[in-house]
């Protein structure tokens, strides 16, 4: 008994609390939903769900999703990792610009990102096609194509990779790269054989993160894939839920389970990788702080990454900006006709100001903090313990991303709207849903960095008599702060741009920005949507800048 009490140290209690919270927030609603599908109402939920497996469209949908998510993940990993390395570990760094620019696509709401690329790359009418038409080659981009779709998925994913990988590289002992240089390895070989493999767990985490976000993205395929006649899982799930009444929840869930399997597989790889001790950690023997001299490659590398960044952040934002100033989207830009009408519309007609902005900032801010606290606690708990409990909690908070948000929102409604909670339409239910829905990216980012902290640094703290709580506060958190902040940024941005939870859960008095986006997308104009996105993007940049600014204060090494 005393042994048990002794083991229940404060931090363990905190973790149990988080686990309980997750159980209430995730398992309870899902369990209720599954239960009522199977036994309640119409019944036969399981046979409906099984029915999905025999549908003729299933195989092509799975194939399409696999190709798009798979190839964009690979591309994003390559691009994000190389850029992060160049910016963090070499003298080709472009400084602050290199820290902020790569994550711009993350700050634009997904709908707007997709539409921005439609503005640019739609056949005949895209701005870029207008420019290409001036050239003699007769080139034409078509965003409504496999290539276009994968391209947009990729640039949407690069920021995640960039954030996680650059946090990991910042912690990489430069001596490892120096040893490779001494042994005659040129910079690119160092990148390939040392820098990236040494942070393999972070790469896997990034892959996991990208996969689950890409799997769950709905706006991009709904804007681009429909016209390209490429069905993916999310569009399919929305058809199932929205076309007919009653919504085909069981079938949609069956698709969710397929996604879940994919995510679990990746998660399992992540867990195995991070526990093997075969990756670089922040060690207890400090070495230099040098960066790699790229020599002649410096400028080509810089220009390349600047070009990519311009292409993926400045160009689409430019397109959004132009459209937001046009009365309506047209490829023939009439500079004299540009005006701020759409901004006026966005701000005052579409309820962006009437509280929703404040609400969203509050919800996303609070939600991001809560989610990150849970994520961090669980991540820290599971580096020390390989028990069933920690695996269960860790797996649960990461794989919940595989459950489509619409389904989660429905589950939340049935679980918490009525007795005994009566949370329907309250800010609380929205906050709870936000936390559960957007916890996974935070959790992945958190464990990616926590796993990087050398074991001896934690051990030295215990030896010094520090309890778990102190070790966490004084050693783990300060060392992992860059990764935590990245996670927080990702979670925050996700919450700001949320469309699905808000639609089902928010009440008439607590509108969020997602509402505005949704209604403009449904019935408004691209101009207003662009204006809204530009403003959101600016707000996001402000908040993210603030987060990283605060981080810089702590991040001293």
């Amino acid at each position: 008994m005393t042994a048990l009490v002794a083991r229940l140290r404060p931090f363990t209690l905190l973790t149990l609390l988080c686990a309980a919270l997750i159980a209430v927030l995730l398992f309870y609603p899902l369990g209720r939903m599954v239960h009522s599908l199977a036994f309640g109402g119409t019944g036969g939920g399981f046979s409906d769900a099984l029915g999905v497996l025999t549908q003729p469209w299933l195989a092509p949908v799975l194939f399409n999703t696999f190709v798009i998510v798979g190839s964009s993940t690979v591309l994003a990993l390559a691009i994000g990792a190389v850029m992060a390395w160049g910016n963090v570990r070499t003298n080709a760094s472009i400084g602050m610009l290199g820290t902020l620019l790569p994550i711009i696509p993350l700050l634009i709401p997904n709908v707007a990102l997709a539409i921005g690329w439609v503005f640019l790359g739609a056949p005949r009418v895209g701005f870029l096609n207008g420019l290409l038409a001036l050239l003699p080659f007769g080139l034409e981009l078509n965003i409504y194509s496999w290539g276009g779709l994968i391209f947009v998925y990729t640039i949407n994913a690069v920021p995640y990779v960039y954030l996680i990988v650059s946090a990991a590289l910042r912690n990489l002992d430069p001596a490892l790269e120096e040893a490779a240089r001494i042994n005659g390895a040129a910079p690119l070989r160092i990148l390939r054989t040392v820098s990236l493999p040494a942070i393999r767990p972070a790469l896997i985490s990034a892959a996991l993160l990208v996969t689950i976000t890409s799997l769950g993205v709905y706006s991009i395929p709904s804007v681009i894939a429909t016209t390209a006649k490429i069905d993916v899982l999310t569009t399919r799930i929305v058809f199932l839920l929205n076309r007919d009444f009653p919504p085909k929840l069981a079938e949609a869930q069956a698709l969710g389970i397929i996604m879940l399997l994919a995510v679990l597989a990746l998660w399992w790889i992540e867990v195995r990788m991070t526990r093997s001790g075969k990756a670089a950690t922040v060690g207890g023997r400090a070495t230099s702080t040098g960066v790699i001299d790229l020599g002649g490659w410096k400028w080509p590398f810089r220009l390349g990454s600047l070009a990519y960044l311009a292409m993926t952040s400045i160009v689409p934002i430019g397109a959004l900006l132009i459209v937001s100033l046009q009365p309506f989207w047209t490829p023939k830009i009439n500079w004299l006709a540009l005006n701020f009408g759409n901004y006026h519309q966005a701000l005052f007609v579409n309820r962006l100001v009437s509280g929703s902005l404040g609400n969203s900032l509050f919800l996303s801010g609070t939600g991001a903090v809560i989610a990150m606290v849970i994520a961090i606690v669980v991540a820290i708990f599971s580096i020390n313990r390989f028990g069933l409990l920690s695996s269960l909690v860790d797996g649960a908070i990461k794989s919940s991303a595989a459950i489509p948000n619409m389904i989660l929102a429905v589950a939340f409604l049935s679980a918490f709207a009525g007795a005994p909670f009566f949370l329907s339409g309250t800010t609380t239910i929205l906050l709870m849903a936000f936390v559960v829905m957007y916890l996974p990216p935070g959790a992945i980012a958190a464990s990616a960095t926590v796993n990087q902290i050398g074991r001896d640094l934690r051990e030295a703290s215990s030896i010094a008599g520090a309890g778990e709580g102190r070790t966490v506060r004084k050693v783990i958190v300060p060392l992992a702060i860059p990764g935590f902040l990245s996670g927080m940024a990702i979670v925050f941005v996700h919450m700001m741009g949320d469309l699905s939870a808000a639609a089902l859960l928010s009440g008439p008095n607590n509108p969020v920005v997602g509402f505005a986006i949704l209604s403009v997308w449904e019935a408004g104009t691209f101009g207003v949507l662009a204006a809204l996105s530009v403003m959101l993007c600016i707000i996001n940049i402000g908040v993210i800048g603030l987060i990283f600014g605060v981080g810089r204060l702590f991040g001293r090494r």
Partner: protein
Amino acid sequence: QSPEDILAAAKAEGEVLVYTSSPDAEMEAKIAAFEASFPEIRVTHIRLPSGQLFTRFISEHDAGVTQADLLAAHSSALFQERPELFVPLTPENLPVLGEQQIIVTPENASYQIFSNDIQLVTYNTDTVSQDDLDAHLASWEDLADPRWKNKVALVDPRNSANQVSFLLNMERLYGDEWFTGFMANEPEIVGTASSASQQVAAGAFDILVPTIPSQSAAVREQGAPIGMYSPEGLSHVTSAGFAVPEGAAHKNAALVFANWLLSPEAQVIQCEFSGVPNIGIEDAACAKLLPEEFTPARDVIPAEDAERVFGLVGLQP
């Protein structure tokens, strides 16, 4: 319960929460007018696409709460499938039913239709002339005219029953062969009508079907080169209906607001925001009325029928 009792109770309740799929602007205009007439009753609303609106309502219902006092959606699927959840609407609790001539009647008494739309062709006025329309789009059948090859966009029917209903009617009128000709024009499939109308304005395609005016109202107001056109042969009418849930907390207020929605005052506002009134009315604002003959859209469609037409337009079901 007399109408007076209901009104008195409504004033006591003092508020109504409406789940609606109507655009915000339209809803706000109506609310403003209503509150001017009934200052004791405050109306709030949540706007959602019909599908999500039903999902939300039914999930809340299953959880044992009824938040919405009134549902006003561009589909009647829920009302048709689960009439028992709603207060039967009669001239007793909805006096307007006795006072006005209701044009499109509901499938059952659990709801009433308050607004209609005729599905039209949206076209780019810069690239499509009146002559083009006369020569190549006199009837809906002309969508198969080679004039529109690579110039026509079709709203993805998988998103809504209204679109499926449209295609089913095309099949009924013109048969499978028509689809062969239509598909030869290689129609683009677009996600939503409102975004596609803007692509029409930008010049991505010449015509877009099937659409209703509200989907492009905003861009047209901005002066985009967009016109609406009604070919011969099919007047496919989609409808929006309302219903009062049984468990509603402000049932009386909801009934009062519903009743008002079918009043000439409300219907005129409705017309200003596009939409065809569902009561006989003569007003300059409501120039467009339903034709003599029209085909109401079906909101509940058997899966086999839907899958068949998806196949006809080359989509996975």
